[in-house]
């Protein structure tokens, strides 16, 4: 070969390959700078410079190189970065395209790739047989977590996780098509041409930068009189020009889910030097396809023999790709070890490019005659019936040891690269993900698609169709249309083997790697079988074969064959592990796509949010809502602010944003009857213009939600729910309405967001709103507590409720939401002038607790009945049916001693109990203690000038006056059981 002074590498061969010589890119690998050609992968670029050592293995830290030229690569995993925040570990050198300025580093080595301390593990490897850790590290008991595990963890792992937040963004697209074709090799392109001819919408998806699949390396296929690769590019161009076809390159179909749903990851910028700011790094496609054509090809297998993992040993097809596509030779003096004819063609191509072929070692006695004849014609030494039984070379292969099968003298042949092929494994991953069932093709020792679970069809190499004419016919038929494609090959391929090769059999102790990334050797698999692991799933888990990031694309079949041989069972009986999505790893960022930061979850804000924020509100999260929590004035902390707010509401008045409360409009002649069935209360007795507090239970009798319901007219109710309960209550109501009570003439509409709700509470509440209200007499007589009226407020149509969650005179002004801010502003201006305050949810909680009002979800959980809560009165005794009527009568719901809501007063009024604190009768009992209940609500009450608390206590109401105890970690607090009303026990203020 001509040793070229090419700056893009000494192993670059002039006139070979498909990249443009003028377009170069510079990158660094482990700090050293290299020049590559645009279109190179990191692997081809490094190989061009003769760099084969790219990484260290997971367990033994053995030097590793490049095994493949595609996504199945187990060894060459690198850390690739653009800048410190855009750093990606575990990138396959064989997939990543080089871009100018890329910083690339090897992984899992220290202090350097060529001298790695971890390689000591390789020396100790006799101790580290499969599953050794299950058998040791058990004493002393604490040492596992403190000593052994940290050491193991540090040794394991591959790349370093990113340390900074990812600044890139990602996109998502839902799409539909008639036919999705996975893989754009000959079969996929032909199927696409055929499908497109029918006018169907077609997605053609391929993981490589250009279409062509195997045509990247295969130079002997002619299609329609053209070189195969050129035909593929022409075909793609024709397809792209059709309006019904979408061609996605650099896009992996990573998952085939139910009902024709596929996940695709499109890599948009990882190969771009300076991506435009708007470009997403990757785009997730979620495609629903009526039909799927799988044209995913086949993956070449390696040979399993002693020391088959040295840098410089690679798949024959990979070497061919590097040569024919990238113009890079993998060595000057290359050996071939094969069980399949395809490797011969790699040798021919290399030979033609001027590379010396040291020998073709074929473990078969009778390889394909045509290839052997061709090899001999070229003067290449072919050793049939021979095997490579060992290799040497520390950081790169330097020789192979060849022995005639069945014995004979070992012959050491010097090589600087060894290309191998044990045949081809059809890529049935997506078929398997679609839940299709495989069959074992005994003759060719491979699994093939058999029974389909979805509307899907496999064509070409992934279907075991080896003959190119058959392949084309199959693809045309799968596309459902017509296309004229005529293709021919120079050689028909035969051969292939699975399992350990000669010299790595059961009687040897050599390290013949099956799974490179996880350092699983043939003897590990045999050990697993010896230890009783007879299911392939056990063998996989015990040895970790196939569990690395390549998911066993190369190792599964070998592992299976070795296990089957050891078990003396045919392969199908040993089983095949299930292929799981994703086909190749997918970045979390891609899967998440837009769902991050602001778009992670909707942030719901009320119409008055901006005004509240301007008034200094702190907000709290309640479900998706941001609710004003408290309104600190300058210098106030939360405690001081809340005390002020609580006092002001009771002394003067307060204004509160209650817009988040759920609202449901219940309309129809049977509305009252419907509510009778859904709430424990009776509703037919409620007069229009009046409100009632309602409790909703589910059939089990436990409190589900509560709220005030106003009757606006005979056939129209305004129902309120808790903030968090709104959607589920509506769903619950619809469920009963549509499926249990469909005869009722009633309709439900969510109006939560139709109304902005401004609660005005306190002695001056009426005075505050009076001037704005028209159309209703606000006097106590005309509009008493629990009234509702339609009127206008500040000229805006409104629903006005006379209700109170504070125990004070109170109104809730409901106005159409767009007017909320304006009305709030008007009311607040006047309220402020009268000395009232804005108050938030914290003060609302305190004020209602002072009155013993319940908060569903805080004072109750899903195990509290209305009677437990002290709301037995809200359960109609007259109704013959409502949801919950039967559940409430179950033995445990009516037994004595149930937990009931009560008040608690600490002996020291200054003590504020912790919400969630547990209550006991005897604080001195040993653990485990018998607990009577817990504190559900607890506050400092400025209005009571002491702490107050609400608690669920077993048999609580009967314990009124008793002293119980709340043991905390540092002390025990004595409490007295009381009723739940702490303020204005007579309840006169509400009628003020």
């Amino acid at each position, binding site marked *: 070969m001509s040793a070229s002074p090419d700056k893009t590498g000494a192993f670059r061969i002039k006139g070979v390959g498909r990249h443009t010589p003028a377009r170069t890119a510079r990158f660094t690998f482990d700090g050293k700078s290299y020049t590559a050609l645009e279109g190179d992968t990191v692997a081809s670029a490094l190989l061009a410079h003769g760099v084969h050592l790219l990484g260290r293995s997971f367990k033994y830290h053995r030097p590793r190189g490049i095994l493949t030229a595609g996504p199945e690569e187990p060894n060459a995993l690198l850390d690739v970065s653009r800048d410190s925040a855009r*750093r990606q570990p*575990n990138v396959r050198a064989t997939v990543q395209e080089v871009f100018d300025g890329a910083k690339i580093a090897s992984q899992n080595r220290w202090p350097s790739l060529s001298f790695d301390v971890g390689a000591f593990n390789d020396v100790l490897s006799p101790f580290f047989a499969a599953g050794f850790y299950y058998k040791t590290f058990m004493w002393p008991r604490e040492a596992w977590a403190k000593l052994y595990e940290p050491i193991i963890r540090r040794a394991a792992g591959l790349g370093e996780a990113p340390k900074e937040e990812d600044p890139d963004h990602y996109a998502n697209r839902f799409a539909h098509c008639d036919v999705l074709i996975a893989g754009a090799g000959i079969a996929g392109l032909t199927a696409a041409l055929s499908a497109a001819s029918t006018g169907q919408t077609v997605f053609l998806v391929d993981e490589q930068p250009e279409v062509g699949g195997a045509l990247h390396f295969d130079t002997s296929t002619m299609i329609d009189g053209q070189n195969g690769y050129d035909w593929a590019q022409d075909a793609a161009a024709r397809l792209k020009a059709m309006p019904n076809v979408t061609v996605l390159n650099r896009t992996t179909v990573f998952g085939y889910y139910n009902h024709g749903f596929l996940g695709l990851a499109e890599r948009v910028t990882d190969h771009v030097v300076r991506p435009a700011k708007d470009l997403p790094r990757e785009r997730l496609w979620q495609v629903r396809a009526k039909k799927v054509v799988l044209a995913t090809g086949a993956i070449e297998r390696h040979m399993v023999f002693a020391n088959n993992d040295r840098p410089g040993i690679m798949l024959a097809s990979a070497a061919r790709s590097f040569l024919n596509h990238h113009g890079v030779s993998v060595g000057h003096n290359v050996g071939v070890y094969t069980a399949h004819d395809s490797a011969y063609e790699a040798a021919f191509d290399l030979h033609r490019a001027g590379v010396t072929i040291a020998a073709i070692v074929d473990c078969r006695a009778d390889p394909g005659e045509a290839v052997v004849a061709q090899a001999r014609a070229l003067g290449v030494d072919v050793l049939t019936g021979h095997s490579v039984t060992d290799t040497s070379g520390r950081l790169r292969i330097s020789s192979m040891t060849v022995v005639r099968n069945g014995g004979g003298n070992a012959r050491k042949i010097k090589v600087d690269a060894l290309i191998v092929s044990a045949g081809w494994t059809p890529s049935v991953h997506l078929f398997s993900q679609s839940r299709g069932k495989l069959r074992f093709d005994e003759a060719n020792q491979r699994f093939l698609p058999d029974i389909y679970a979805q509307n899907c069809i496999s064509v070409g190499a992934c279907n075991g169709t080896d003959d190119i004419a058959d392949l084309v016919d199959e693809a045309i038929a799968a596309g459902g249309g017509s296309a004229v494609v005529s293709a021919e090959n120079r050689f028909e391929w035969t051969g292939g083997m699975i399992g350990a090769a000669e010299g790595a059999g059961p009687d040897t102790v050599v390290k013949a790697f099956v799974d490179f990334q996880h350092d699983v050797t043939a003897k590990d698999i045999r050990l697993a079988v*010896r230890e009783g692991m007879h299911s392939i799933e056990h063998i996989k888990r015990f040895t970790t074969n196939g569990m690395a990031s390549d998911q066993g694309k190369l190792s599964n079949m070998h592992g299976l064959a070795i296990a089957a041989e050891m078990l003396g069972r045919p392969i199908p009986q040993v089983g095949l592990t299930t292929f799981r999505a994703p086909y190749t790893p997918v*970045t979390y960022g891609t899967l998440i796509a837009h769902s991050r930061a602001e778009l992670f979850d909707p942030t719901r804000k009320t119409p008055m949010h901006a005004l509240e924020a301007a008034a200094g509100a702190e907000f709290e999260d309640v479900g998706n809502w941001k609710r004003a929590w408290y309104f600190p004035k300058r210098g106030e902390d939360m405690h001081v602010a809340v005390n002020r707010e609580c006092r002001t509401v009771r002394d003067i008045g307060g204004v509160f944003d209650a817009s988040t409360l759920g609202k449901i409009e219940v309309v129809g002649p049977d509305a009252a009857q419907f509510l009778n069935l859904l709430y424990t209360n009776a509703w037919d007795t409620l007069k229009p213009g009046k409100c009632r507090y309602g409790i909703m239970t589910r059939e089990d009798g*436990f409190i589900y939600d509560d709220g005030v319901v106003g009757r606006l007219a005979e056939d129209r109710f305004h129902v309120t729910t808790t903030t968090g309960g709104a959607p589920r209550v509506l769903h619950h109501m619809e469920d009963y309405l549509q499926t249990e009570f469909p005869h009722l003439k009633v309709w439900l509409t969510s109006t939560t967001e139709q109304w902005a709700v401004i609660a005005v509470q306190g002695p001056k509440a009426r005075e505050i709103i009076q001037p704005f209200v028209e159309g209703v007499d606000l006097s106590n007589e005309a509009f008493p507590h629990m009234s509702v009226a339609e009127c206008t407020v500040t000229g805006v149509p409104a629903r006005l409720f006379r209700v109170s969650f504070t125990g004070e005179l109170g109104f809730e002004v409901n106005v159409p939401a767009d007017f909320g801010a304006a009305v709030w502003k008007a009311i607040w201006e006047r309220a402020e002038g009268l000395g009232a305050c804005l108050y938030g949810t914290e003060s609302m909680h305190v004020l209602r607790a002072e009155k013993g009002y319940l908060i569903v979800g805080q004072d109750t959980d899903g195990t509290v009945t209305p009677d437990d809560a002290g709301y037995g009165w809200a359960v109609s005794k007259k109704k013959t049916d409502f949801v919950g009527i039967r559940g409430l009568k179950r033995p445990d719901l009516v037994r004595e001693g149930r937990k009931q809501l009560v008040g608690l007063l600490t002996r020291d009024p200054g003590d504020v109990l912790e*919400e*969630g604190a547990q209550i006991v009768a005897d604080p001195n009992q040993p653990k485990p203690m018998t*607990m009577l209940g817990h504190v559900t609500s607890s506050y400092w009450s400025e209005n009571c000038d002491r702490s107050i608390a609400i608690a669920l206590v077993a048999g609580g109401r009967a314990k009124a006056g008793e002293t119980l105890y709340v043991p*905390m970690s540092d002390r025990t607090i004595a409490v007295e059981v009381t009723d739940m009303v702490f303020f204005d026990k007579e309840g006169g203020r509400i009628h003020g």
Partner: protein
Amino acid sequence: MRKYSVFAIAREAMRAHKGWDAQWISPEPRSSYDVIIIGAGGHGLGAAYYLAKEHGITNIAVIEKGWLGGGNTGRNTTIIRSNYLYEESMDIYEHSLKLWEGLSQDLNYNVMYSPRGVMMLSHNTHDMQSFKRHINANRLYGIDNEWLTPEQARAFCPPLDIAKTARYPINGAALQRRGGTARHDAVAWGYARAASDRGVHIIQNCEVTGIRRGPNGEVQGVETSKGFIGARKIGVSAAGHSSVVMEMAGVRVPLHSNPLQALVSEPLKPIFPCVVMSNTVHAYISQSDKGELVIGAGTDQYNSYSQTGGLQIITHTLDAICELFPIFRRVKMMRQWGGITDNTPDRSPIQGVTPVPGLFVNCGWGTGGFKATPGSANLFAHLIAKGEPHRLAAGLNLDRFRTGRLIDEAAAAAVAH
């Protein structure tokens, strides 16, 4: 049985590890046994082990449709903790946690129990109230669980984002330091080996197709794909498929079987020291000894036995994970899978007698079955041996659905994992 130790390994290393015995034997079934346990997961194998070890019953078969440990034992995210709320739950999960602490030594099998701490994130007032309720209840019950400030939480788990500007800022966390993880396969294998050593028959690839009952309704044995096998007592421990098996005996149990999904990342160097769970954003995560981030995703909404599920469940979990740990956005999902969980109406397990004499059930562990493995197995063995439940499992009976005495951790708590 060969004792496992570092010395045994050293000896075997000298002779190419050719001296190891099978960890368990795979015998042909006898015509009958004293006890048959249906389901060779951790719970079933463990029950057989404890029956042999603690109750002197060794004429046992554990019958498994597939391969042992291949159900939920081998598909979960291996979280262990005991900081539950109700006494019934605390009893069994704490019993379990205590057994975890000595399990490797008891079984002579390193199950890699790693008490690296389970931290549950609190995002709002409701979470805080709920967590403190748990913490106080746990403390008075003698179970460790402590409150951490956001800063303490980040100190315990450095990748955690505690910025106040987050969509759901963290206002604290509950930490159980004794909580952690274990190696799931090792649990099944360790129990299998120890049970097999005591004479228990583990019969794999044998599907139970019927439960034969005598004139008085009592169990007589099981029909299987390998023929009829007699037994005086049958314990059902067939997570995911409990309804199907119980139906064979005419017993209906209140269960839903749902696919629960999980995923792992590519292996990374140690970055994540503990287990973190967040119910508000629906995520839980830890890092395995191999370096994979192990992430529990959600349950698909519908009943299914398909061990698969929708992509939307995965994406929804990952957006939550990346919200908590923004540095993980460039990490890659390597593999996703699903298991079938059976879920009860109150999300607490059922372990107890059934209306059929001689038939005992252990099911409904939902998403919490792995952590309960030793405790559940130990108490299930007691139930089968004595015919009545152990004090610590008495509340887990089937009758509670009639009386309404539910153990509703989900209704009571912020976290039900």
